[in-house]
């Protein structure tokens, strides 16, 4: 796992080596082991290395033996051994044992279609000196980040936005429509980022730059069958799922450095840890977060899983004060506003992993999205059930089965619960039926925007933008499959794998690997009938069946508790931090111009008085504070010479 960057001159001239050096220097946290640049007139590639495979021979930027192709690569191609054998049979020669060289030769053999052969998580740039062509590519799910921008004479790309902003010609400006998206969907819609004119390579896409033209070429997207079978035989499906996950884990243990495991106490990471133990046949080192606040803590399940699997386990305790203390660093790495503090404890966790000498961890990400785990799927199922018989007196009672871990929702009177999760005829007909409650609730935060921002985003509707890009088969999918698609397409890459994933682990030079996101697992899961993934209201039903007896019974039976962290209250009361008070002050709010000072003051007062308890208040506070931090760190404090994380905030 590494950091990459590069510059392509589009109108002649030579790449500025110093500029390239400044870009890669900002990414040293992603690759602290080595750093190098390659400049050849119009192209410059740079690499910051975290050595994991072929420690001696894998230095980058790397070229083919004949020097025709050059690459800078961040990530892993887990099936590189098999591809290498295949390419060797076809006559390709290799000078190293690295997966990087396998990409180069696969590109030489298959061209841009080489990505179809890869099983992995990657962001790479290949420069073809003969064709004078640059190929930027990102893995199917967006595990690894890749951003780009254009200046009048160049195209610049990098693993993180902060590297692009070292270039004086790249303006640092918040994209207000992207902000509108985050305050609705929690994420920006690719290729947008939070910054104007800075784009991400969308997951499952390659970008080709040749003769000054930039074209985006999608090569993969999750898809589902249009019909569902109701009489699937579960046992063979469970066996196949187990086999696929074993295989996905086996190739994800390929590494020349030790691999650890995140063990949250939930089903998914217990499964990945169990598979790891079985395959590696060794004592696993596992790591977890515990919370001082019992509402969020899962230590008892972590201990149970660790004992059952015989792991050597270490945890780090996270308090509200910790979250307030590290939140500026968290936003420095997310590079976008967030409406939850949940990335912060993961920042601490990767620090613990790194302190213990580990560079690689296996995690359970992806299981909820592809195997029917999320509460939003259950919510959609219940709402769909209610809508089919609106007059029913007993069906609304099922709403109490939603979010059992959220006390303030459980205390809500029935009439209000029903209203919040109500289904109108319009909702029922909406292509976004499953996501309307979440998106509508989040969109209420936009009332905090200043008059100027509201005027600028006036007629913009993010849902229209999503609707315009839906694949044609979407309209034939059930509401359940549509919900899965929306989660996998937007929240997974835009928040789970980035804000909570890559950006938090790579802040401490730790690479996460995700067996559930092996494309063979995802493609298999996409074909499963919905009622096998969630049987009645039993989330991840088939996964539980596949691992029956292989993990503790208590972990299989426990009620689902999504990973959450203390939110807005972290920044007030005993844990109050100076930077938050300053950034939330009317003067600072007015100066940045994004939010309405009076509205933010009302919100702050509510928190100071201890009266802010709702989901909306918490999301609003974190949304405002993280946006203010982003503006402060990336715009107000921007230095044209260099960018550093402000050590104070």
């Amino acid at each position, binding site marked *: 796992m590494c950091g990459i960057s590069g510059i392509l001159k589009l109108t002649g001239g030579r790449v500025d080596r110093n500029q390239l050096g400044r870009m890669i220097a900002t990414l040293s946290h992603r690759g602290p082991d080595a750093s190098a640049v390659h400049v050849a007139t119009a192209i410059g590639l740079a690499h910051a290395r975290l050595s994991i495979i072929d420690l001696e021979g894998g230095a980058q930027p790397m070229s083919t033996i004949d020097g025709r192709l050059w690459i800078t690569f961040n990530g892993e191609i887990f099936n590189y051994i098999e591809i290498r054998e295949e390419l060797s049979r076809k006559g390709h020669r290799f000078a190293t044992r690295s997966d990087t060289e396998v990409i180069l030769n696969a590109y030489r053999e298959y061209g841009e279609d080489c990505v179809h052969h890869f099983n992995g998580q990657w962001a790479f740039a290949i420069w073809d000196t003969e064709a004078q062509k640059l190929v930027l590519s990102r893995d199917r799910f967006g595990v690894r980040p890749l951003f780009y921008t254009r200046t009048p004479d160049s195209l610049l790309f990098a693993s993180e936005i902060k590297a692009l902003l070292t270039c004086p010609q790249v303006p640092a400006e918040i994209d207000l429509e992207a902000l509108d998206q985050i305050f609705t969907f929690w994420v920006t819609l690719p290729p947008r980022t939070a910054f104007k004119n800075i784009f991400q390579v969308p997951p499952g896409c390659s970008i080709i730059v040749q003769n000054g033209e930039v074209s985006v070429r999608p090569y993969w997207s999750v898809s589902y069958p249009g019909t569902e079978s109701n009489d699937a035989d579960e046992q063979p499906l469970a066996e196949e799922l187990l086999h696929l996950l074993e295989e996905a884990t086996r190739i994800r243990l390929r590494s020349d450095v030790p691999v650890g495991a995140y063990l949250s106490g939930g089903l998914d990471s217990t499964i990945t840890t169990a598979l790891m133990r079985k395959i590696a046949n060794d004592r696993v080192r596992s790591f977890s977060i515990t919370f001082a606040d019992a509402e969020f803590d899962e230590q008892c399940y972590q201990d149970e899983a660790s004992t059952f699997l015989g792991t050597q386990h270490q945890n780090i305790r996270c308090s509200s004060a910790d979250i307030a203390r590290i939140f500026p660093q968290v936003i420095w790495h997310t590079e976008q506003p967030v409406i939850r503090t949940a990335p912060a404890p993961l920042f601490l966790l990767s620090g613990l992993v790194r302190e213990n000498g580990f560079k690689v961890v296996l995690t359970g990400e992806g299981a909820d999205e592809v195997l029917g785990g999320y509460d939003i799927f259950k919510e959609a199922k219940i709402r769909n059930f209610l809508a089919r018989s609106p007059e029913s007196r007993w069906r609304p009672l099922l709403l109490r089965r939603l979010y059992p871990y959220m006390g303030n929702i459980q*205390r*809500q009177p029935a009439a*209000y619960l029903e*209203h919040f999760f109500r289904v109108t005829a319009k909702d029922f007909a909406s292509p976004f039926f499953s996501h309307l409650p979440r998106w*509508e*609730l989040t969109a209420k935060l936009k*009332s905090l925007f200043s008059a100027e921002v509201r005027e600028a985003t006036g007629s913009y509707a993010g849902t229209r933008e999503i609707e315009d890009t839906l694949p044609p088969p979407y309209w034939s999918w059930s509401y359940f499959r549509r919900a899965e698609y929306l989660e996998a397409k937007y929240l997974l890459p835009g928040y789970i794998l980035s804000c909570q994933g890559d950006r938090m682990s790579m802040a401490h030079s730790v690479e996460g690997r995700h067996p559930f996101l092996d494309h063979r697992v995802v493609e298999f899961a996409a074909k499963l009938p919905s009622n096998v993934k969630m049987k009645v209201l039993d989330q991840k039903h088939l996964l539980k069946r596949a691992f029956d007896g292989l993990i503790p019974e208590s972990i299989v039976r426990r009620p689902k508790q999504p990973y959450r962290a203390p939110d807005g209250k972290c920044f007030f009361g005993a844990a109050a931090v100076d930077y938050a008070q300053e950034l939330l002050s009317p003067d600072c709010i007015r100066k940045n111009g994004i939010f309405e000072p009076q509205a933010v003051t009302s919100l702050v007062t509510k928190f100071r008085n201890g009266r802010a308890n*709702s989901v909306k208040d918490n999301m*609003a506070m974190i949304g405002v504070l993280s946006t203010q931090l982003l503006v402060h760190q990336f715009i107000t404090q921007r230095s044209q010479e260099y960018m550093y994380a402000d050590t104070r905030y």
Partner: protein
Amino acid sequence: MPTRDIEREVHSFVISNFLFDQSVDLEPDDSLLDKGLIDSTGVIELVDFLEERYAIKVEDDEVIPANLDSVRNVAKYVDRKLTRVA
């Protein structure tokens, strides 16, 4: 306390607690649910406020939109409760 004063206090509470955007008009008969002012947990805050400010006990079966879904209805409901206590 006159109903009009209760209405003014409830209006002020709703504005400062639920309405980030203070330029939005809130009429006495506006539905707090339909206007999106009371979110999934907001009614609990409203009940807390009423019990504390007017020293009344809001029974579970009284937490229904007919009583609490507009500033005017809330004021009438509180007025009824206070009259009953008196």
